[in-house]
């Protein structure tokens, strides 16, 4: 058992470990990075809906401002996406 594990371990090169770490890091980066922007966009949409339900005549302005705010909130998610892409394809 131990000898088997050792023989498998001796077959793993440094490049394999780097490749594995790259994929794991990209997954963690994208997964955790998406949490913040998702929660933020949800909060923005919820409050915009709240406002629209209260004042339906303000719908156009609220929708525009909501999309703008969500696009800015999304920036952090996009940054983590870029880091993940760089990890996968460039590193």
């Amino acid at each position, binding site marked *: 058992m131990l000898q088997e594990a050792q023989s498998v371990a001796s077959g793993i090169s440094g490049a394999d470990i780097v490749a594995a770490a790259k994929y794991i890091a990209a997954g963690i980066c994208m997964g955790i990075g998406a949490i913040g922007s998702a929660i933020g966009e949800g909060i923005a949409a919820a409050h915009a809906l709240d406002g629209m339900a209260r004042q339906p005549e303000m719908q156009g302005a609220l929708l525009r401002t909501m999309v*703008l705010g969500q696009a800015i909130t999304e920036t952090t998610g996009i*940054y983590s996406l*870029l880091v993940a892409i760089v990890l996968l*394809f460039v590193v």
Partner: protein
Amino acid sequence: MHEIFSQLAGLLTHLGEKPILVIPLLGGEIRVDWMTILMSWTVMTIIIVIALFLRRSLRQPVEEKPTRVQATLDALIDLLQGQLSSNFSSEELARMMFPFVSTLFLYVLVSNWIGIVPYLTSPTQDLNVTFGLALLVFFLSHWLAMRKKGIRRYLRGFAEPYAFMVPINLVGELAKPLSHAFRLFGNVLAGSILTTVVMAKIFPLAVPAGLNIIFGLFFGGIQGFVFAILAVAYINVAVES
């Protein structure tokens, strides 16, 4: 896995993998991606040809009954004015900036939408294009601010509310074009990578078409609108604050 990555490598030329044309210049070199330039000119040609085609139906006295094309164009201009340039705080600035921001919107919109045609790539999928557009907005907003406020009041604006805030304000100003460019680039690139992966590996026919509709048409439209409205917001903040 490797086939997907070799297919994706074609999408990722702008990350420094495959410069198509290298021009030596003063010790350094300029790297040019032919595909981006070609697609950028294609987008410009499409917009210009459509504009010239639509313009033919406008040649008539104003007092006559407008044609259908003219009424549609009126509605489009009204929509752009209501959604984009009504966000400027002064009427004069809105009138001056309306052609610029609506051109920005149309260019980004057609650039995003052209990516749904197979074998064509969006020019906005290249960071250089989006960064160029963002820098255009950045320099325009600061130039307008300098012209409106005068150089002394413009420079004093960086020291507000307190003098020790100058570095923070400078970083904030420099982060604007960065996030402006990366937002559009990241969204368009993510959509095209996702569509390519699904098309290459999972479902060949129907699902990529649906993804194309969602990412190309819907998100492309939203991102074009967001890009233009952020340009409006940046110019407005720089000039009026």
